[in-house]
């Protein structure tokens, strides 16, 4: 990315920018838009690719609560896999969705009962919680099944997910960020 007009002429550079914008002909404008579309598509492809490779519908998730402290804190990023042949075993950290709720929960498996035919039912609990998750499950539901699992936590990065949380809690910040990014990409010129 090169910025037109270097060093020292800040006010002048801004004026140059808008001047450039007005002088841009149609072809350049289309080019900029296509460039922008390429970036968005590439990001989307990478995300979809990750979904395919990991087998999980949401391979990267942000921890929202403190129920798994001190291992994971709010704002940590988790990397998930959800391979079909991976059995669910006690001690594993799973991310699951309760039927009817949008928000996935990341807790640890503490009980597993598996039948000969592969049918599994399991119970989870947050490390930092006193009781197991039965209170979080659906009314009358006592166990989770494989279909409720979004993925198993395989790796993690601390703090990085805070950006997502901030964007969620302060939508104005999200729009401002998007506007800045959009403007930057649209106005960037190959020098």
């Amino acid at each position, binding site marked *: 990315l090169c910025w037109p007009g270097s060093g020292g002429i800040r006010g002048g550079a801004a004026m140059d920018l808008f001047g450039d914008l007005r002088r841009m002909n149609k072809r350049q404008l289309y080019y900029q838009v296509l460039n922008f579309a390429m970036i968005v598509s590439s990001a989307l492809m990478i995300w979809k690719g990750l979904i395919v490779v990991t087998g999980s519908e949401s391979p990267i998730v942000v921890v929202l609560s403190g129920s798994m402290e*001190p*291992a*994971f804190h709010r704002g940590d990023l988790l990397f998930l896999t959800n391979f079909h042949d991976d059995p669910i*075993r*006690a*001690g*594993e*950290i799973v991310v699951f969705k309760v039927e009817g709720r949008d928000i996935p929960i990341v807790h*640890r498996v*503490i*009980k*597993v*009962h*598996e*039948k*000969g035919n592969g049918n599994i*039912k399991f119970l989870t609990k947050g*490390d930092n919680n006193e009781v*197991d998750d039965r209170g979080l499950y659906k009314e009358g539901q006592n166990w989770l099944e494989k279909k409720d699992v979004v993925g198993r*936590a*395989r*790796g*993690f*990065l*601390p703090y990085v997910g805070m950006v997502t949380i901030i964007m969620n809690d302060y939508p104005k910040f999200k729009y401002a960020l998007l506007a800045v990014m959009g403007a930057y990409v649209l106005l960037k010129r190959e020098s």
Partner: protein
Amino acid sequence: LRKNVEDFTGPRERSDLGFVTFDITADILNGKKFGLQTFWNKNTLIIFDWNVKQLFLYLSAEYSTKNNALNQVVLWDKIMLRGDNPRLSLKDMKSKYFFFDDGNGLKGNRNITLTLSWNVVPNAGILPLVTGSGHVSVPFPDTYETTKSY
């Protein structure tokens, strides 16, 4: 790495409830981190390196019943932070969580295997699950206890 001692059982309505008392002697410092020794010139691998924030230890009971081919129940867990004493010597511990079976598979079950495992939580990176070496098989008696001695 570990030793255990076991006890008895009791029924609760329709599912068996087991009571186990145990001792744990473990030396985690020299335990395996990724399930295999990666240094061949040393016999041990120090587990608490710069990238390990904590270990989540848990004692799980694994067994088969008529109802279910595989059952795993976590009986006890502990968080061991970097800096904590890595040698555990706990005696006469009661299980933290109720050892309910899904059905009545504990009565007369001769082979309940207790293993100590841990989840390595790094400062950043992969989250491996490791099983400690050494496990103990515990049989449950054929009859239920009616006295509340737990």
